[in-house]
């Protein structure tokens, strides 16, 4: 139903948009000024002239205790973590859901509910045992140690299970008659059909991995594994050249930290919507 838009509605929308966007704009604008300016004048809403210099410095200058970590390294680490989480979780939860939906084995339903109840336990509850396991496996300060313990995903398994249940049985039967075994059916039929689900879960899981802070901090002491999230913090603590903290650099890192999730959302959201409208089930 079409409704005539009233000026008041617009006003509310504009205020809401400003409320959401201003912090980002201010962070970006401030990052293009020098630290001294920010310190004396407060935050800026207009861009300054120091942008290129700040961003180059943030991305390439070596810092940290060891003097080895650059912004690029941290960006890279965050990427590995985000993509690793997302891809790993999708692969694992798809396979788990496939087993739960398509194979009849004893206690399938109880097993599903056991997996499902782990949703109720946040990472922090098992963070100590997980740490101990990784430590005994000598996986501290490795990417495997960072990623693997968090891969099991009840959310992903649940979503894929619901999706697989909605796939008509006749497809499975047709594929069986067409000579596709369990592996072929999974790869040739189910995976392509799940593209939209995968896109949706990728968005959620990438951001989940990208935003991890506590877990990487526990698992890695080697600075070459630092993520952007830790970098922002360390700038304010460590990179103190004079008495003034490098506000501009912290802002620049924060802005950089926002870009990849934004890109992921934009790219996969389009795929997500496309999949939704094209699907003929």
């Amino acid at each position, binding site marked *: 139903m079409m409704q005539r838009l009233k000026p008041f509605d617009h006003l509310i929308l504009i205020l809401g948009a400003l409320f959401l966007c201003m912090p980002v704009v201010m962070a970006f604008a401030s990052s293009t000024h020098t630290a001294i300016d920010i310190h004396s004048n407060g935050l800026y809403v207009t861009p300054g002239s120091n942008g290129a210099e700040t961003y180059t410095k943030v991305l390439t200058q070596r810092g940290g205790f060891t003097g080895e970590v650059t912004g690029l390294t941290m960006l890279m680490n965050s990427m590995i973590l985000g993509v690793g989480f997302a891809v790993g979780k999708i692969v694992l939860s798809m396979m788990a859901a496939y087993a739960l939906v398509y194979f009849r084995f004893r206690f399938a339903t109880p097993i599903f509910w056991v997996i499902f109840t782990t949703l109720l336990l946040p990472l922090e509850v098992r963070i100590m045992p997980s740490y101990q396991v990784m430590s005994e496996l000598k996986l501290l300060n490795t990417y495997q140690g960072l990623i693997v313990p968090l891969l099991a995903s009840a959310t992903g398994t649940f979503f894929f299970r619901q999706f697989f249940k909605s796939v008509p049985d*006749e497809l499975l*039967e*047709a*594929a*069986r*008659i*067409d000579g*596709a075994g369990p592996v072929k059916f999974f790869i*040739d039929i189910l995976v392509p*059909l799940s593209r939209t689900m995968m896109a949706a879960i990728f968005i959620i899981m990438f951001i989940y991995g990208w935003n991890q802070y506590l877990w990487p901090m526990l698992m890695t002491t080697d600075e070459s594994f630092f993520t952007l999230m830790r970098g922002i913090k360390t700038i304010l603590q460590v990179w103190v050249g004079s008495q003034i903290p490098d506000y501009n650099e912290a802002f620049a890192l924060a802005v950089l930290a926002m870009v990849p999730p934004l890109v992921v959302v934009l790219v996969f959201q389009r795929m997500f919507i496309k999949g939704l409208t094209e699907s003929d089930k």
Partner: protein
Amino acid sequence: MGQISFKSVGKTYAGGVTAVSDVTLDVAEGEFIVLVGPSGCGKSTLLRMVAGLEEITDGEIDIAGRVVNRLDPADRDIAMVFQNYALYPHMTVKENMAYGLKNRRTPKAEIEARVAEAARMLELQPYLDRKPRALSGGQRQRVAMGRAIVRQPAAFLFDEPLSNLDAKLRVSMRMEIRKLQRRIGTTSLYVTHDQLEAMTLADRLVVLNGGKVEQIGKPLEVYHRPASTFVASFIGSPAMNLLDARVEGGQVWLGGAAMGPAGRAEGPVTLGIRAEDLRPAPASQGVALKVEHVEELGSGRVVHGHVDGQALAVSMAPGLPIGDVLHVGAAPEALHLFDTTTGRRIETRTRAAELVL
């Protein structure tokens, strides 16, 4: 090579429910068999047992000389067409048809050739690169048939393939399927609940009820000599009239009128008469029908009324006058007698008379 034989085939589910019992049937090479019955009669289960999608718990099914009870669906050399088409939504028409062959490691050139041939037969050439969602219902059904044809299997299995189409398309697809099957000559099993579809398609009909075979025969044979009251009421439209009657002195009596000779039967019987076999008769010979309602069909009319408190329908040519009471009668060979308790047919004619059919 394409014979299928059922030897006392049955299916009992784990819960103890019997879906199909004791089906014995020999399907000759190239024959078109239609399994027909109301929903829940086990016809789909039986077909899925042939396909290997349901386990066979009793008896044996033999396809092209091999017992297939323990074989995977892929190894049974059959192809199936599903009611909802079951096309792979993410593959093009071409890929859909080629998928089964690709999995069997058929050489690429041969796949191309077979898909092209099937597409030509089904007039699908313009759509080969489309996805199923861009096709109409009839086209999707054709793709599903194409997928079966390219496999060149020993048998086609059709599971109510026309149920999702609109009435007009159903009639034309029905003819197409029949023509196609004649041309390719592949043994076919076809499941439907539509008796008209069954009559028009089948070389032989298998009428199922409650998991048991009621009758197996050529469509006209089943139509003219239904083996039970179930078959009589299921095959033919309008359904055959079934009335309580008595046999006394070798004559069938209904509502005080002698309808015809009854052969060896005696006592109460169920009398079956098709609406189109009833004709107006002189008052002295026919039974009096109290007319209640007339259905005008254009090409004819169906008169509904009561005889002796029992409903009776009569098909009549248009234009004949219809009063409040209509006297109708039928030729002796149009009378079907059934046992009142078992519902089985009681033969009234001699072998010689049957052969005339």
